[in-house]
């Protein structure tokens, strides 16, 4: 059953449809929140909060839009609220004290060629390399290549302009390349 039908069923009062929705999105949302916050201690609470918000606001969901994008946007808002409370501003740690972006220093060449990926063929190597790149780049790469979102959808979920996400995606690839090539 697709998301649209599930949403229709929930709005019609079918309780089992919401259970199905939770089953489908529990793991993706759980991991998405972990990627955004990097805090495993509050992950259960944030996931619960996200799904309760989904249930409360479902009647306001515009059914002409993609449900998947909407639920991830709610997850993002929940994570940002949590980070605001924690007073940790997300995604700025890759800028130095003077506000210069270290990523701009990376050479602008063919971004992530297959040879580079061959070098880090093992999944574990990529996993390690991903952990070394800034979190906001990691989030974009995983959303793009693991969760299979388009750049437009990522922009909508993260609440950023499309062009910003597009350039961050390019930088993320460059950054990953740099990490892979520099790893002995």
């Amino acid at each position: 059953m697709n998301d649209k039908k599930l949403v229709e069923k929930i709005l019609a009062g079918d309780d089992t449809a919401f259970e199905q929705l939770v089953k489908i999105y529990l793991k993706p949302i759980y991991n998405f929140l972990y990627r955004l916050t990097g805090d495993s201690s509050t992950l259960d609470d944030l996931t619960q909060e996200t799904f309760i918000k989904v249930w409360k606001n479902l009647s306001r969901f515009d059914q002409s839009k993609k449900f998947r994008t909407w639920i991830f946007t709610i997850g993002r808002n929940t994570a940002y609220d949590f980070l605001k409370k924690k007073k940790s501003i997300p995604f700025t740690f890759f800028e130095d004290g003077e506000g210069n972006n270290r990523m701009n220093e990376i050479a602008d060449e063919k971004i992530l060629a297959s040879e580079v990926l061959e070098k880090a063929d093992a999944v574990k190597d990529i996993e390690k390399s991903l952990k070394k790149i800034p979190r906001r780049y990691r989030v974009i790469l995983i959303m793009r290549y693991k969760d299979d979102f388009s750049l437009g959808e990522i922009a909508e979920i993260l609440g950023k302009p499309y062009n910003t996400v597009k350039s961050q995606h390019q930088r993320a690839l460059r950054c990953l390349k740099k990490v892979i090539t520099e790893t002995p």
Partner: protein
Amino acid sequence: MDRKLKQILQSIAEPDPPRNLANVILRKVELEREKWLKRELFLSYFGMASSLAILFYAIAAFGRLVVNSEFWSLALLAFSDLAVIAHNWRGFSYSLMETMPTVNIIAVLLPMFALMLLFNLYLNLRDKWVPKNLKNSLNPNT
């Protein structure tokens, strides 16, 4: 290249959420639902009681004005002199419209309308609200 990266990233294992998390979420949603229903039911009771009180007041205050108005006397003619009215129906209609105490009638109809709306809301909520003990007793498996 994109496909290669996609393949690699998709094969990265991600942690599974705790086993009981889905149940905890569903339980919390159920609690939220009950809370919402209770709140809505309270609002509908309160609204019905208020609009009923306002309706009684409106009938007492404005109903008397309507009954004592020229409009009411004219309207009563419809029961006594129907043949004459049928003959002069146009003039009678104009007279009715001219003498109609619109504000007084609206003042009586508004709370009546609100009462009907709130009663409809109450009936809808009552269908959704099945207390847990009743739900369990209706379930043949329990």
